[in-house]
């Protein structure tokens, strides 16, 4: 016992000593880490040419990078360009040459993500999101890349967003050589998360309001509703002190609700997610939230969403508790902003002094390579 403690202590000491050794950039030193899928991965050296399985991983990379977040990135999937064009243009303005040189590798789980293209790009690491681990195994993508000598590391900001964000940031910090940036961002993340958790912990279960999350409200103009079980936005609601309706029905990531079930449940709040999908899908009726979100446009959009058949008669809608929030918080480490705003909607008195917009601005001032702008949430009248 004692010796184990001592050896553990010695190891810790050694670790501290090592971490104080000045790091030389791009050192040829093997790096072994355990990724979010629980796989142990050894990188022969600090990677310098990384492919992102999702472009939206840039949200996290930009937040922890000191300087140019594109420095080690050679390509991505164009989901950021397609589904969050506002954020993409922010990156484009800040780093025009880098945004230009990004190679679109397409969907890593589809046929168009070719191993050849990965080798052609001379990549030395592929970052995938763990929500698709099963698919990656099924299609043999990991094996093929392994054979080609390109390691794969899984991170996750979506499936178990709140649980996996800190470990994912730690992993990103290590593979990008941005440990300091990651640590600083994690401190910020924890502090902001605790602002809500410390208050919500004291609220008894029976006093928690019932909340319906509508995933991508208006994506399908004639259909309601996709929701989240106790994952992602469903979990955000729970952490913000709400009772998530879909969690009471099914323990699944994605749950399809019936409108009648929603009406019968008589929720206290309905929260739809929205983003600027209008460029990729002009027929959407969603609120176009994001860095270019226009309050006047979104005010009209949210009124139309709240007036859809079935919604118009909901108590939540009549009481002014139909809200809309930026969809992409669901796949980014900034979800603490969403949790703060949801908490403020659910408990306006308890969180009177909490200012999520200020949190969002401070996030940008401290960590992001661009300024905050646009609109990220609103409520219907």
């Amino acid at each position: 016992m004692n010796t184990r403690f001592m050896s553990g202590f010695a190891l810790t000491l050694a670790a501290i000593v090592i971490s104080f050794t000045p790091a030389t950039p791009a050192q040829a030193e093997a790096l072994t880490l355990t990724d979010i899928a629980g796989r142990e991965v050894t990188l022969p050296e600090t990677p310098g040419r990384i492919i992102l399985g999702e472009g939206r991983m840039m949200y996290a990379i930009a937040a922890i990078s000191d300087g140019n977040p594109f420095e080690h990135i050679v390509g991505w999937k164009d989901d950021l360009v397609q589904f969050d064009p506002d954020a993409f243009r922010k990156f484009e303005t800040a780093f025009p040459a880098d945004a230009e040189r990004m190679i679109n590798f397409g969907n890593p789980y589809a046929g168009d993500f070719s191993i050849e293209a990965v080798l052609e790009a001379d990549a030395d690491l592929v970052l995938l999101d763990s929500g698709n681990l099963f698919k990656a195994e099924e299609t043999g993508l990991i094996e093929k890349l392994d054979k080609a000598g390109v390691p794969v590391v899984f991170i996750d900001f979506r499936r178990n967003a709140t649980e996996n964000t800190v470990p994912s940031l730690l992993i990103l910090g290590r593979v990008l050589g941005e440990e300091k940036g990651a640590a600083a961002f994690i401190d910020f993340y924890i502090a902001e998360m605790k602002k809500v958790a410390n208050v919500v912990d004291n609220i008894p279960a029976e006093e928690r309001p019932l909340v319906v999350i509508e995933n991508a409200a208006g994506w399908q103009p004639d259909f309601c509703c996709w929701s989240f079980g106790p994952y992602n936005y469903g979990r955000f609601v729970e952490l913000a002190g709400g009772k998530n309706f879909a969690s009471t029905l099914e323990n699944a990531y994605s749950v399809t609700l019936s409108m009648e079930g929603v009406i019968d449940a008589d929720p206290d709040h309905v929260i739809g997610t929205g983003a600027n999908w209008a460029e990729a899908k002009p027929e959407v009726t969603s609120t176009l939230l994001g860095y270019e979100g226009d309050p006047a446009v979104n005010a009209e959009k949210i009124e139309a969403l709240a007036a859809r058949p079935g919604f118009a008669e909901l108590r939540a809608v009549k009481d002014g508790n139909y809200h809309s929030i930026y969809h992409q918080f669901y796949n980014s480490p900034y979800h603490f902003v969403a949790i703060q705003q949801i908490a403020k909607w659910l408990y306006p008195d308890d969180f009177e002094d909490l200012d999520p917009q200020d949190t969002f601005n401070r996030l940008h001032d401290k960590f992001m390579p661009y300024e905050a702008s646009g609109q990220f949430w609103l409520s219907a009248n």
Partner: protein
Amino acid sequence: MTQITESPTVGDIVATYRRRSLLRVALVAGAALALFITVLIDVITGPADLSFFRVAHVIFQPGVATPKEDVIIWDLRLPVAIMAVVVGAMLGVAGAEMQTILNNPLADPFTLGLSSAASFGAAVAIVLGWSVLPGIGALFVTVNAFAFAMVASMGLFLFTKLRGVSPEAMILVGIAMLFTFNALLAFLQYGASELQLAQLIFWQLGSLARATWAKVGICVVVLAVVLPYFLSKSWALTALRMGEDKAAALGVNVNGLRLMVLAGVSLLSAVAVSFVGAIAFVGLVGPHIARMIVGEDQRGFLPLSALAGALILSGTSIASKAITPGIVYPIGMITSLIGIPFFVSLILSQRKRHWQ
């Protein structure tokens, strides 16, 4: 040992015919009653706890409803319940006539690739954002699905015009289209995002949740045009089932009839799948159930196929709500589960071959 049967008298024949007609009417009436009951159950069940009398009151006296009841019954439950009936009937009729003109027990809108064409059309809209008719807004997924299904059946139409209308050729071209569109669909699915995939799944497995009164209206109009036409051709279609040569000898223009019926069937299936997505099984099994009960005479077979299709889909609508109240399941995966036990029990209880 030979047995000499006495030739029946005229009176016997007339009596037998009357009995058969009466039985046919009774069977159709019985099926209609069963359908009425399933629709009733469909309307009174749902996550919201509304009693039978309350529902009836709201339906017959809409003024008494609270806004909540009004939305639940008039906007949510009734369109879905009626859509299930109308679409089920459309698929049943489409399957029945496809089996008749192609003389093949496996023919239905699925086998001929019309459903997969519609699914592909929807996928083109969902994944690529391409619209056949630009600027029609929210309806463009539906319009795309319809356009692709019609193009597929027009392709079939043209092919049969070119090569002569042999049923084998039509079936084979249909199957070729089925595989082509499925392959194209798989291509699009590969590149789809999370939300697009979720949307596609509901298209491929079918859903009544998008039903509105306007869509119900369109379906009713199409059925009201096509079904009477088919009924008016009853005797010719019945003759066709006795064999092409016999039908021709009886004065039926076989090729002309095939093309007209194919056009009607295409319209029925294209409209149905473009509103509710691809629903397997109903168009195939509905007619078989009807055939086992009343035989080939189109005057009984056609209405009963429509009713059998409507019954299957109406039952499915009830089941899809009952699994977990508050959650919507795609109905395509339930149609088979509901229909198969009944279908298998019918096959097992039939002594004679029902397809000749």
